[in-house]
């Protein structure tokens, strides 16, 4: 199978003459002669995958994806579908950003390194912590990395990481996989009315605890009111206080550094990515004390031979390609391009825009809850708390029945209990919100 332009890879630019000259220079008749594969394990069959033209392939993917229903999503829990300014798509798609690799040669990679340095700086401002890395895969893997960090930096031996009982299944399960190779075990503390049950938490925290994890806002969209107290109970036990959040929430909510957080994790892709079936960008920031134990890549400032400021990957002795089994993490390829998009989206918003986007999340959740509460048999929000972006509503009839009926009318909502729906107002337009309120009042008895 030699392949020509017609039948081979469309991205291999060889001419027949060029290929023949290369074969001659190497001293073989065909490229197949270069494969040093024993006959017993050679593959001489076909995969049965038809080649297609670009046009046919586009049509194929389009026709498959058209099976997705076009629903208005009132789903949140970490993915919000905020409007992404066109600038982000157009500039992030510039091929130098898209087609470069990790910046192992910093002299030809200044643009990406600077963009990542600016992303790190964004997180430092949002969290108030000293350092941020330039990405983990998503919030769940960042939480796993926070636990293994806690295991490394804590002086005394301890075996428990404490998480809220409402933690999303994907996060909890990922965390359990990350700690499976350590002596750590995942344990929960109860929540009350959506927030941490402070008294119960304080009882659970002991010297065996290496990490206490809390979220703000919580998975139910409530704003956590006892962050400083949670942090104190963790600190008293010499455990790390790890806080889960996201860039939009951090624009207005209490600064993690001010409530004693040692590490902040979360999903930064709430800015810069559409709802990409859960594709994310793990935010990871921490206090400077853990600099040599931080997982993932760090971009630092230095100088070049002309004494001008220049950027480079730094402290790579923590990383797997240098330290191998003693590395702080196995992460190599991360979410750099998503970090670029997040930084770009944040830059288009600026300080005022970021705060207003977060404020809008508070106001719209309140407004939608009020509209739904006006419907007979509905309690919204269920939790007597402040909310950001989303809230839980209680119904008299089975929630799944209402969700199904809403889906038929073009709206996706989240069932979180037999009689409870979770609703998120962040990623939809005013018009869509009006349509939803109307549909809701029609399907709720």
């Amino acid at each position, binding site marked *: 199978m030699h392949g020509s332009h017609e039948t081979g890879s469309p991205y291999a630019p060889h001419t027949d003459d060029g290929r023949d000259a290369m074969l001659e220079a190497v001293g073989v008749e065909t490229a197949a002669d270069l494969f040093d594969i024993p006959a017993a394990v050679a593959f001489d069959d076909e995969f049965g995958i038809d080649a297609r033209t*670009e046009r046919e392939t586009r049509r194929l993917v389009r026709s498959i994806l058209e099976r*997705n229903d076009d629903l208005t999503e009132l789903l949140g829990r970490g993915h919000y579908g905020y409007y992404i300014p066109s600038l982000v798509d157009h500039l992030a798609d510039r091929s*130098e*950003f898209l087609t470069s690799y990790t910046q192992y040669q910093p002299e030809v990679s200044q643009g990406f390194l600077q963009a990542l340095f600016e992303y790190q700086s964004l997180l430092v401002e949002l969290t108030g912590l000293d350092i941020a890395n330039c990405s983990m895969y998503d919030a769940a893997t960042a939480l796993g990395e926070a636990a293994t960090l806690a295991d490394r930096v804590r002086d005394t031996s301890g075996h428990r990481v404490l998480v809220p009982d409402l933690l999303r299944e994907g996060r909890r399960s990922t965390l359990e996989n990350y700690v499976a190779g350590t002596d750590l075990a995942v344990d929960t503390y109860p929540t009350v009315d959506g927030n941490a049950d402070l008294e119960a938490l304080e009882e659970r925290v002991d010297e065996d605890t290496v990490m206490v994890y809390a979220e703000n806002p919580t998975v139910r969209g409530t704003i956590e009111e006892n962050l400083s107290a949670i942090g104190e109970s963790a600190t008293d036990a010499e455990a790390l206080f790890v806080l889960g959040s996201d860039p939009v929430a951090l624009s207005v909510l209490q600064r993690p550094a001010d409530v004693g957080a040692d590490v902040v994790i979360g999903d930064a892709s709430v800015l810069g990515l559409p709802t990409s079936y859960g594709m994310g960008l793990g935010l990871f920031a921490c206090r400077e004390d853990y600099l040599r134990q931080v997982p993932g890549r760090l971009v630092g400032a230095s100088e070049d031979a002309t004494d001008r400021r220049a950027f480079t990957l*730094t402290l790579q002795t923590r990383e797997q390609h240098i330290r191998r089994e003693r590395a702080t993490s196995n992460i190599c390829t991360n979410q750099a391009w998503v970090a670029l998009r997040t930084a770009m989206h944040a*830059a288009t918003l600026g*300080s005022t825009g970021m705060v207003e986007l977060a404020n809008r999340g508070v106001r719209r959740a309140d407004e939608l809850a009020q509209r739904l509460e006006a419907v007979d048999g509905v309690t919204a929000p269920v939790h007597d708390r402040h909310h950001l972006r989303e809230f839980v509503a209680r119904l008299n009839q089975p929630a799944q029945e209402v969700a199904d009926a809403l889906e038929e009318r073009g709206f996706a909502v989240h069932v979180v209990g037999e009689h409870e729906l979770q609703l998120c107002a962040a990623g939809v337009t005013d018009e869509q919100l009006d349509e939803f309120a109307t549909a809701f009042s029609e399907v709720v008895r």
Partner: protein
Amino acid sequence: MSDERTTEETPIDASQVRYDQARYVENGQYEPLLSEKDLTRVAIGDADAGEDGAAKRVDSPLPDDLTRDSLELPELSEPELARHYTRLSQMIYGIDSGPYPLGSCTMKYNPKFTEDVAALPSAAVHPDRSGQSIQGTLELLYRLQDYLGRIGGMDAVTLQPPAGAAGEFVGIRVAAAYHEHNGEGHRDEVIIPESAHGTNFATAALGGYDVVSLPSDDDGRVDLEALEAALSENTAALMLTNPNTLGLFERDIEEIAEMVHDVGGLLYYDGANLNALLGRARPGDMGFDVMHYNVHKTFATPHGGGGPGAGPVGVVEDLDPFLPAPRVREAEDTGEGDEVTYELFDPDHTIGHVHGYQGNWLVLIKAFAYIARLGDAGLADASAKAVLNANYLASQLEYDVPYEPFHHEFVASAGDQDAADVAKRMLDYGVHPPTTKWPEIVPEALMTEPTEIESKETLDRLAAAFNAVAEEGDGTLEDAPERTTARRIDQTSAARNPRLSWQALADDE
């Protein structure tokens, strides 16, 4: 490039190649940081405007005790941002800029149309949507699982791991769960060749395993005697890539597989070098039990400056029940009409999640489109030309290539020169250098992988750059690079005095 410059009679003269990367200098700095263009502090809630240097005040609907006092970020206009990011992009070398033979990274061309299909509005779905409402997403995932299974010779595939190293972690966790399930939880060692990717070691350690390092034999392959000595009833797995990082095919793979299986261990395939095998050999046929695929390498999804990638994992039938949850399958009840429907399910003995949701979906779409575009003929052609290109390029170099016969990549030695200096000088010739100083088996290693996307003319230009540098004296190399945005960067001071944010830079002044 004109025809006459590409003929054998008139080889490319590296001295005639002039490359200059964009460089913006303002106030003695390259493109200023956003924070140096503007920083606007906004006071939040009841805080008085002007306090804490705040230029503006924004009311908050939340009580003061739940909010921060202020936020300080740049506020720039869209045109200013467009110029900033355009300038930054011009100060980056990508695969669309020129040759990028970074060994083991498989920097192949990223087709443009795959960006368009991943950007289809119908691709933007929330991960908590009902399965019924995202049949398109589930079908595409199902089809990609099927494609990858065929290509790797594997019985089942999960698409959840968001990168190659994450795929390794799944492989190790699945192996652990399998052994545990069989009452063999005592197996606590993973064997890894010394020349393996660093992620293998880190992954095994993250999985709680002791690493047993395996030396190479004189011809650069697995030393079977050393392997025999390393294997025991404590062996959980052997992690191997084939071809290995020297580009050499492990010819004894059947025997290796037998030896590992004989002691009850599993054979793990690191898919980093799969591009060399497309349509020629399959890990499943070689006796591998579990493997990961690096879609950003083999299946041409963009590397994106270091991600996102995707690292699907394939396994043989015995390991299928342990794969991460959830997976996609055809629904038994296809409902009304003829169309097949798809559903998510949790494997019987699943290890659970390794990602909050389903990995890097937008990347998976691109990989699917790439495979569907190439088909059997295109995939086999890619591996043939990747191997031809590596062999041709090596044949044109003045540097010594100690180990052969290699496949898609080779490791040259810079000899008396410092490989890192060679790399810096190559940048001046408008090409990205190979991976340097690794694997350590070869002194001053230049690990080179041109991939199938380069023509003979480009390979000649690349060889000319290598050879020009081979003849240059130390002084030139130490002063390189000269034509890139930044000149040689001081790595030591970056690590000694870490400044990792614009806030840290400001504190420093």
